[in-house]
Protein backbone atom coordinates (compact mmCIF):
# COMPACT_ATOMS: atom_id res chain seq x y z
CA UNK A 1 0.00 0.00 0.00
CA UNK A 2 1.27 3.43 -0.79
CA UNK A 3 0.02 6.98 -0.67
CA UNK A 4 -1.58 7.94 -3.95
CA UNK A 5 -3.07 11.43 -4.11
CA UNK A 6 -3.74 11.15 -7.85
CA UNK A 7 -5.71 7.96 -7.37
CA UNK A 8 -7.70 9.58 -4.55
CA UNK A 9 -8.52 12.49 -6.83
CA UNK A 10 -9.63 10.05 -9.52
CA UNK A 11 -11.76 8.15 -7.03
CA UNK A 12 -13.56 11.37 -6.10
CA UNK A 13 -14.47 11.75 -9.78
CA UNK A 14 -15.45 8.07 -9.99
CA UNK A 15 -17.77 8.70 -7.07
CA UNK A 16 -19.55 11.48 -8.92
CA UNK A 17 -19.90 9.33 -12.04
CA UNK A 18 -21.33 6.48 -9.97
CA UNK A 19 -23.91 8.87 -8.53
CA UNK A 20 -24.78 10.12 -12.01
CA UNK A 21 -23.50 13.64 -11.39
CA UNK A 22 -21.88 15.65 -14.18
CA UNK A 23 -18.08 15.69 -14.30
CA UNK A 24 -16.19 18.26 -16.34
CA UNK A 25 -13.71 16.79 -18.79
CA UNK A 26 -11.17 19.41 -17.71
CA UNK A 27 -11.14 18.03 -14.16
CA UNK A 28 -9.97 14.67 -15.43
CA UNK A 29 -7.77 16.11 -18.17
CA UNK A 30 -5.49 17.64 -15.57
CA UNK A 31 -5.26 14.36 -13.72
CA UNK A 32 -4.31 12.48 -16.87
CA UNK A 33 -1.77 15.10 -17.80
CA UNK A 34 -0.10 14.54 -14.45
CA UNK A 35 0.26 10.85 -15.23
CA UNK A 36 3.64 10.68 -16.87
CA UNK A 37 4.56 8.33 -19.70
CA UNK A 38 6.68 6.24 -17.37
CA UNK A 39 3.84 5.78 -14.87
CA UNK A 40 2.77 2.26 -14.02
CA UNK A 41 0.38 0.50 -16.42
CA UNK A 42 -2.26 0.47 -13.64
CA UNK A 43 -1.97 4.22 -13.16
CA UNK A 44 -2.30 4.86 -16.87
CA UNK A 45 -5.18 2.41 -17.25
CA UNK A 46 -7.05 4.04 -14.37
CA UNK A 47 -6.65 7.51 -15.85
CA UNK A 48 -7.65 6.48 -19.35
CA UNK A 49 -10.65 4.49 -18.16
CA UNK A 50 -11.83 7.49 -16.15
CA UNK A 51 -11.38 9.77 -19.13
CA UNK A 52 -13.29 7.39 -21.41
CA UNK A 53 -16.08 7.07 -18.86
CA UNK A 54 -16.41 10.83 -18.47
CA UNK A 55 -16.63 11.20 -22.24
CA UNK A 56 -19.41 8.63 -22.43
CA UNK A 57 -21.21 10.23 -19.48
CA UNK A 58 -21.06 13.58 -21.26
CA UNK A 59 -21.72 12.59 -24.86
CA UNK A 60 -23.56 9.25 -25.11
CA UNK A 61 -27.30 8.74 -25.22
CA UNK A 62 -29.39 8.29 -22.08
CA UNK A 63 -29.48 4.48 -22.17
CA UNK A 64 -25.70 4.22 -22.56
CA UNK A 65 -25.16 6.68 -19.74
CA UNK A 66 -27.44 4.59 -17.53
CA UNK A 67 -25.59 1.41 -18.52
CA UNK A 68 -22.30 3.12 -17.67
CA UNK A 69 -23.56 3.92 -14.17
CA UNK A 70 -24.73 0.35 -13.74
CA UNK A 71 -21.39 -1.03 -14.94
CA UNK A 72 -19.39 1.26 -12.65
CA UNK A 73 -21.58 0.26 -9.72
CA UNK A 74 -21.15 -3.39 -10.62
CA UNK A 75 -17.35 -3.15 -10.87
CA UNK A 76 -16.85 -1.01 -7.77
CA UNK A 77 -19.19 -3.19 -5.71
CA UNK A 78 -16.83 -6.10 -6.44
CA UNK A 79 -13.89 -4.38 -4.71
CA UNK A 80 -12.96 -4.45 -1.04
CA UNK A 81 -13.94 -6.95 1.61
CA UNK A 82 -17.39 -8.44 1.09
CA UNK A 83 -19.80 -6.78 3.52
CA UNK A 84 -23.32 -7.11 2.27
CA UNK A 85 -26.46 -6.48 4.38
CA UNK A 86 -28.75 -9.53 4.46
CA UNK A 87 -31.75 -7.57 3.20
CA UNK A 88 -30.25 -5.44 0.47
CA UNK A 89 -32.75 -3.59 -1.70
CA UNK A 90 -31.13 -2.46 -4.97
CA UNK A 91 -33.67 0.35 -5.34
CA UNK A 92 -32.43 1.84 -2.08
CA UNK A 93 -29.04 2.32 -3.76
CA UNK A 94 -30.26 4.86 -6.30
CA UNK A 95 -28.14 7.63 -4.77
CA UNK A 96 -25.34 5.40 -3.50
CA UNK A 97 -21.72 6.47 -3.79
CA UNK A 98 -18.50 4.50 -3.53
CA UNK A 99 -18.65 4.39 0.26
CA UNK A 100 -21.84 2.35 0.07
CA UNK A 101 -21.07 0.26 -3.00
CA UNK A 102 -17.62 -1.06 -2.11
CA UNK A 103 -17.92 -4.60 -0.77
CA UNK A 104 -21.58 -5.12 -1.74
CA UNK A 105 -20.76 -7.55 -4.58
CA UNK A 106 -23.88 -6.69 -6.59
CA UNK A 107 -25.10 -8.96 -9.36
CA UNK A 108 -25.54 -7.36 -12.77
CA UNK A 109 -29.37 -7.33 -12.45
CA UNK A 110 -29.03 -5.62 -9.06
CA UNK A 111 -26.68 -3.02 -10.50
CA UNK A 112 -29.10 -2.34 -13.35
CA UNK A 113 -32.05 -2.14 -10.99
CA UNK A 114 -30.22 0.36 -8.79
CA UNK A 115 -30.09 2.83 -11.70
CA UNK A 116 -33.63 2.16 -12.88
CA UNK A 117 -32.62 -0.06 -15.80
CA UNK A 118 -33.98 -3.40 -16.95
CA UNK A 119 -32.47 -6.06 -14.65
CA UNK A 120 -32.85 -8.70 -17.38
CA UNK A 121 -30.80 -6.79 -19.93
CA UNK A 122 -27.68 -8.95 -19.68
CA UNK A 123 -26.25 -7.70 -22.98
CA UNK A 124 -26.12 -4.11 -21.75
CA UNK A 125 -22.77 -4.75 -20.07
CA UNK A 126 -21.33 -6.13 -23.33
CA UNK A 127 -22.53 -3.12 -25.31
CA UNK A 128 -21.18 -0.72 -22.74
CA UNK A 129 -17.81 -2.46 -22.61
CA UNK A 130 -17.55 -2.29 -26.38
CA UNK A 131 -18.26 1.45 -26.43
CA UNK A 132 -15.92 2.07 -23.52
CA UNK A 133 -13.15 0.00 -25.08
CA UNK A 134 -13.26 2.07 -28.27
CA UNK A 135 -13.19 5.35 -26.32
CA UNK A 136 -10.33 4.27 -24.11
CA UNK A 137 -8.21 3.04 -27.02
CA UNK A 138 -8.59 6.40 -28.77
CA UNK A 139 -7.80 8.30 -25.59
CA UNK A 140 -4.75 6.13 -24.97
CA UNK A 141 -3.30 6.88 -28.41
CA UNK A 142 -4.05 10.57 -28.09
CA UNK A 143 -2.70 11.02 -24.57
CA UNK A 144 0.28 8.69 -24.55
CA UNK A 145 1.04 8.41 -28.27
CA UNK A 146 1.52 4.67 -28.01
CA UNK A 147 -0.39 1.53 -28.87
CA UNK A 148 -3.08 0.74 -26.30
CA UNK A 149 -2.89 -2.51 -24.30
CA UNK A 150 -4.10 -5.63 -26.10
CA UNK A 151 -7.11 -5.83 -23.79
CA UNK A 152 -8.41 -2.60 -25.31
CA UNK A 153 -7.81 -3.79 -28.85
CA UNK A 154 -8.79 -7.45 -28.80
CA UNK A 155 -12.43 -7.10 -29.78
CA UNK A 156 -12.40 -4.06 -32.03
Amino acid at each position, binding site marked *: *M*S*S*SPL*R*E*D*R*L*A*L*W*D*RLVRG*EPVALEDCGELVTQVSHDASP*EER*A*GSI*LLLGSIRIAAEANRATRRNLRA*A*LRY*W*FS*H*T*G*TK*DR*PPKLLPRSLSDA*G*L*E*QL*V*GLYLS*WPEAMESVGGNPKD*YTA*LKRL*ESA*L*RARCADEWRERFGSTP*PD*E*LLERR
Partner: protein
Amino acid sequence: MTREEDRPSFFSKTIEGEATPIDHVDHPDLTLMFSSLEGDLAPDVRSALAAHLATCTTCHARYRELERRLQDAAEAHDARARVPSFDAYVHEQSGTRTTMSEWIRSLLEPRPYVLVAASAAALALVLAVAIPLVRGPSLRTSGQIELLNNRISDLQSQLISLADLNHGIPNQSSVGNALVVSDLTRLDWERPAPYAVQPGDNWEGIAERELGDADLWPLVWLLNRDIGTPDVAPPVGATLELPTPRSSP
Protein backbone atom coordinates in the same frame (compact mmCIF):
# COMPACT_ATOMS: atom_id res chain seq x y z
CA MET B 1 -23.03 -15.35 -17.66
CA THR B 2 -20.64 -17.31 -19.83
CA ARG B 3 -17.21 -18.53 -18.82
CA GLU B 4 -15.62 -15.79 -20.94
CA GLU B 5 -17.56 -13.16 -19.01
CA ASP B 6 -16.40 -14.61 -15.71
CA ARG B 7 -12.81 -13.79 -16.69
CA PRO B 8 -11.77 -10.43 -15.18
CA SER B 9 -12.02 -7.82 -17.93
CA PHE B 10 -9.73 -4.85 -18.46
CA PHE B 11 -12.41 -2.75 -16.82
CA SER B 12 -13.00 -4.81 -13.70
CA LYS B 13 -9.24 -5.24 -13.20
CA THR B 14 -8.64 -1.52 -13.61
CA ILE B 15 -11.44 -0.60 -11.24
CA GLU B 16 -10.11 -3.10 -8.71
CA GLY B 17 -6.73 -1.41 -8.98
CA GLU B 18 -8.33 1.99 -8.47
CA ALA B 19 -9.93 0.83 -5.19
CA THR B 20 -6.83 -0.92 -3.86
CA PRO B 21 -6.26 0.12 -0.21
CA ILE B 22 -4.09 3.19 0.36
CA ASP B 23 -1.92 3.75 3.42
CA HIS B 24 -3.66 6.95 4.48
CA VAL B 25 -1.97 9.36 6.86
CA ASP B 26 -5.09 11.32 7.81
CA HIS B 27 -8.49 9.81 8.54
CA PRO B 28 -11.94 11.39 8.69
CA ASP B 29 -13.43 11.94 12.13
CA LEU B 30 -16.79 10.64 13.29
CA THR B 31 -18.49 14.00 12.84
CA LEU B 32 -17.70 13.95 9.13
CA MET B 33 -19.03 10.40 8.87
CA PHE B 34 -22.25 11.37 10.67
CA SER B 35 -22.69 14.33 8.33
CA SER B 36 -22.19 12.06 5.34
CA LEU B 37 -24.75 9.56 6.62
CA GLU B 38 -27.22 12.37 7.15
CA GLY B 39 -26.54 13.74 3.65
CA ASP B 40 -25.27 17.06 4.94
CA LEU B 41 -21.98 17.25 3.04
CA ALA B 42 -21.18 19.39 0.01
CA PRO B 43 -20.68 17.24 -3.12
CA ASP B 44 -16.90 17.74 -3.30
CA VAL B 45 -16.40 16.92 0.40
CA ARG B 46 -18.75 13.94 0.13
CA SER B 47 -16.88 12.54 -2.89
CA ALA B 48 -13.50 13.08 -1.22
CA LEU B 49 -14.78 11.16 1.80
CA ALA B 50 -16.13 8.41 -0.48
CA ALA B 51 -12.69 8.15 -2.11
CA HIS B 52 -11.09 7.74 1.31
CA LEU B 53 -13.60 5.15 2.49
CA ALA B 54 -13.19 3.14 -0.72
CA THR B 55 -9.47 2.79 -0.05
CA CYS B 56 -9.32 2.60 3.76
CA THR B 57 -10.60 -0.69 5.15
CA THR B 58 -10.56 0.55 8.77
CA CYS B 59 -12.59 3.68 8.10
CA HIS B 60 -14.91 1.80 5.78
CA ALA B 61 -15.71 -0.77 8.48
CA ARG B 62 -16.29 2.04 10.96
CA TYR B 63 -18.57 3.84 8.51
CA ARG B 64 -20.62 0.69 7.89
CA GLU B 65 -21.02 0.15 11.64
CA LEU B 66 -22.27 3.71 12.10
CA GLU B 67 -24.61 3.30 9.14
CA ARG B 68 -26.13 0.19 10.70
CA ARG B 69 -26.52 1.86 14.08
CA LEU B 70 -28.27 4.86 12.55
CA GLN B 71 -30.55 2.60 10.50
CA ASP B 72 -31.48 0.66 13.64
CA ALA B 73 -32.14 3.94 15.44
CA ALA B 74 -34.26 5.23 12.57
CA GLU B 75 -36.32 2.03 12.53
CA ALA B 76 -36.85 2.22 16.29
CA HIS B 77 -37.77 5.89 15.93
CA ASP B 78 -40.33 5.04 13.24
CA ALA B 79 -41.80 2.33 15.45
CA ARG B 80 -42.06 4.85 18.28
CA ALA B 81 -43.80 7.33 15.98
CA ARG B 82 -46.37 4.67 15.08
CA VAL B 83 -47.44 4.35 18.74
CA PRO B 84 -50.46 6.70 19.13
CA SER B 85 -50.49 9.32 21.84
CA PHE B 86 -53.15 9.29 24.52
CA ASP B 87 -54.97 12.07 22.68
CA ALA B 88 -54.99 9.99 19.51
CA TYR B 89 -56.23 7.03 21.49
CA VAL B 90 -59.11 9.10 22.94
CA HIS B 91 -59.86 10.38 19.45
CA GLU B 92 -59.97 6.85 18.14
CA GLN B 93 -62.21 5.67 20.95
CA SER B 94 -64.62 8.61 20.95
CA GLY B 95 -64.71 8.89 17.19
CA THR B 96 -65.12 12.67 17.14
CA ARG B 97 -63.08 14.23 19.95
CA THR B 98 -59.58 15.32 19.10
CA THR B 99 -57.93 15.78 22.51
CA MET B 100 -58.34 14.55 26.05
CA SER B 101 -59.27 18.06 27.25
CA GLU B 102 -61.96 18.35 24.58
CA TRP B 103 -63.24 14.96 25.57
CA ILE B 104 -63.53 15.98 29.24
CA ARG B 105 -65.07 19.33 28.30
CA SER B 106 -67.63 17.58 26.13
CA LEU B 107 -68.69 15.57 29.15
CA LEU B 108 -69.17 18.66 31.28
CA GLU B 109 -70.51 21.31 28.91
CA PRO B 110 -74.01 19.97 28.30
CA ARG B 111 -74.38 18.89 31.93
CA PRO B 112 -73.53 21.71 34.40
CA TYR B 113 -74.81 19.60 37.29
CA VAL B 114 -71.97 17.18 36.62
CA LEU B 115 -69.53 20.02 37.19
CA VAL B 116 -71.27 20.95 40.47
CA ALA B 117 -71.29 17.34 41.62
CA ALA B 118 -67.64 16.88 40.71
CA SER B 119 -66.70 20.05 42.61
CA ALA B 120 -68.64 18.89 45.66
CA ALA B 121 -66.96 15.51 45.52
CA ALA B 122 -63.55 17.12 45.25
CA LEU B 123 -64.32 19.37 48.25
CA ALA B 124 -65.49 16.40 50.27
CA LEU B 125 -62.33 14.53 49.39
CA VAL B 126 -60.16 17.46 50.47
CA LEU B 127 -62.05 17.75 53.76
CA ALA B 128 -61.86 14.03 54.34
CA VAL B 129 -58.11 14.18 54.02
CA ALA B 130 -57.52 17.55 55.66
CA ILE B 131 -59.65 17.18 58.80
CA PRO B 132 -57.95 14.04 60.09
CA LEU B 133 -54.59 15.67 59.43
CA VAL B 134 -55.54 18.74 61.47
CA ARG B 135 -57.58 17.15 64.23
CA GLY B 136 -56.36 13.61 64.20
CA PRO B 137 -58.29 10.80 62.62
CA SER B 138 -61.45 9.72 64.31
CA LEU B 139 -62.67 6.20 63.92
CA ARG B 140 -65.21 7.33 61.35
CA THR B 141 -62.82 9.38 59.21
CA SER B 142 -60.23 6.61 59.38
CA GLY B 143 -62.83 4.27 58.02
CA GLN B 144 -63.63 6.71 55.21
CA ILE B 145 -59.97 7.07 54.35
CA GLU B 146 -59.62 3.31 54.25
CA LEU B 147 -62.63 3.12 51.93
CA LEU B 148 -61.08 5.74 49.67
CA ASN B 149 -57.78 3.88 49.63
CA ASN B 150 -59.55 0.70 48.74
CA ARG B 151 -61.38 2.48 45.95
CA ILE B 152 -58.12 3.87 44.56
CA SER B 153 -56.56 0.40 44.74
CA ASP B 154 -59.52 -1.02 42.84
CA LEU B 155 -59.18 1.59 40.13
CA GLN B 156 -55.45 0.89 39.83
CA SER B 157 -56.14 -2.83 39.53
CA GLN B 158 -58.68 -2.20 36.80
CA LEU B 159 -56.23 -0.07 34.87
CA ILE B 160 -53.54 -2.73 35.15
CA SER B 161 -56.00 -5.38 34.01
CA LEU B 162 -56.97 -3.29 31.02
CA ALA B 163 -53.33 -2.85 30.08
CA ASP B 164 -52.61 -6.55 30.55
CA LEU B 165 -55.54 -7.52 28.38
CA ASN B 166 -54.33 -4.98 25.80
CA HIS B 167 -57.75 -3.36 25.43
CA GLY B 168 -56.59 -1.16 22.62
CA ILE B 169 -54.01 0.49 24.82
CA PRO B 170 -50.59 0.34 23.12
CA ASN B 171 -47.79 -1.15 25.13
CA GLN B 172 -45.17 1.54 24.73
CA SER B 173 -42.55 -0.28 26.73
CA SER B 174 -42.23 -2.84 23.94
CA VAL B 175 -40.56 -0.27 21.72
CA GLY B 176 -37.44 -0.32 23.85
CA ASN B 177 -34.69 2.22 24.09
CA ALA B 178 -32.71 3.07 21.03
CA LEU B 179 -30.16 5.53 19.88
CA VAL B 180 -31.58 8.56 18.07
CA VAL B 181 -29.78 11.25 16.15
CA SER B 182 -30.48 13.87 18.82
CA ASP B 183 -28.47 11.72 21.24
CA LEU B 184 -25.48 12.09 18.97
CA THR B 185 -25.69 15.77 18.17
CA ARG B 186 -25.94 16.85 21.80
CA LEU B 187 -22.37 15.62 22.18
CA ASP B 188 -19.23 17.12 20.75
CA TRP B 189 -17.34 14.25 19.10
CA GLU B 190 -14.60 16.45 17.75
CA ARG B 191 -13.27 17.55 21.14
CA PRO B 192 -13.23 14.40 23.24
CA ALA B 193 -12.07 14.40 26.86
CA PRO B 194 -9.81 11.71 28.37
CA TYR B 195 -11.29 9.16 30.74
CA ALA B 196 -9.30 6.66 32.80
CA VAL B 197 -10.93 3.24 32.95
CA GLN B 198 -11.86 2.25 36.51
CA PRO B 199 -12.10 -1.26 37.98
CA GLY B 200 -15.47 -2.79 37.08
CA ASP B 201 -15.99 -0.53 34.08
CA ASN B 202 -17.37 -1.84 30.81
CA TRP B 203 -18.32 -0.09 27.55
CA GLU B 204 -22.01 0.12 28.36
CA GLY B 205 -21.45 1.27 31.93
CA ILE B 206 -19.08 4.02 30.87
CA ALA B 207 -21.56 5.25 28.26
CA GLU B 208 -24.37 5.28 30.78
CA ARG B 209 -22.46 6.96 33.58
CA GLU B 210 -20.37 9.45 31.61
CA LEU B 211 -22.73 10.22 28.69
CA GLY B 212 -26.05 9.49 30.32
CA ASP B 213 -27.10 6.89 27.74
CA ALA B 214 -26.02 3.26 27.70
CA ASP B 215 -27.15 2.97 24.06
CA LEU B 216 -24.19 5.13 23.05
CA TRP B 217 -21.69 2.41 23.99
CA PRO B 218 -21.01 1.25 20.39
CA LEU B 219 -19.95 4.77 19.48
CA VAL B 220 -17.76 5.00 22.57
CA TRP B 221 -16.12 1.78 21.49
CA LEU B 222 -15.77 2.99 17.88
CA LEU B 223 -14.07 6.11 19.15
CA ASN B 224 -11.65 3.92 21.13
CA ARG B 225 -11.48 0.82 18.99
CA ASP B 226 -7.69 0.70 19.33
CA ILE B 227 -8.13 -0.02 23.05
CA GLY B 228 -9.97 -3.31 22.67
CA THR B 229 -12.84 -5.27 21.21
CA PRO B 230 -16.53 -4.52 21.92
CA ASP B 231 -17.14 -7.84 23.66
CA VAL B 232 -14.36 -7.32 26.21
CA ALA B 233 -14.30 -4.55 28.80
CA PRO B 234 -11.51 -2.00 28.32
CA PRO B 235 -8.46 -2.63 30.52
CA VAL B 236 -8.34 -0.82 33.85
CA GLY B 237 -6.13 2.25 33.69
CA ALA B 238 -6.48 2.67 29.93
CA THR B 239 -7.27 6.19 28.82
CA LEU B 240 -10.36 6.46 26.63
CA GLU B 241 -11.59 9.40 24.65
CA LEU B 242 -15.17 10.39 25.42
CA PRO B 243 -17.27 13.04 23.68
CA THR B 244 -18.08 16.09 25.74
CA PRO B 245 -21.48 17.73 26.14
CA ARG B 246 -22.00 20.30 23.42
CA SER B 247 -22.54 23.76 24.87
CA SER B 248 -25.97 25.13 24.02
CA PRO B 249 -25.97 28.05 21.53
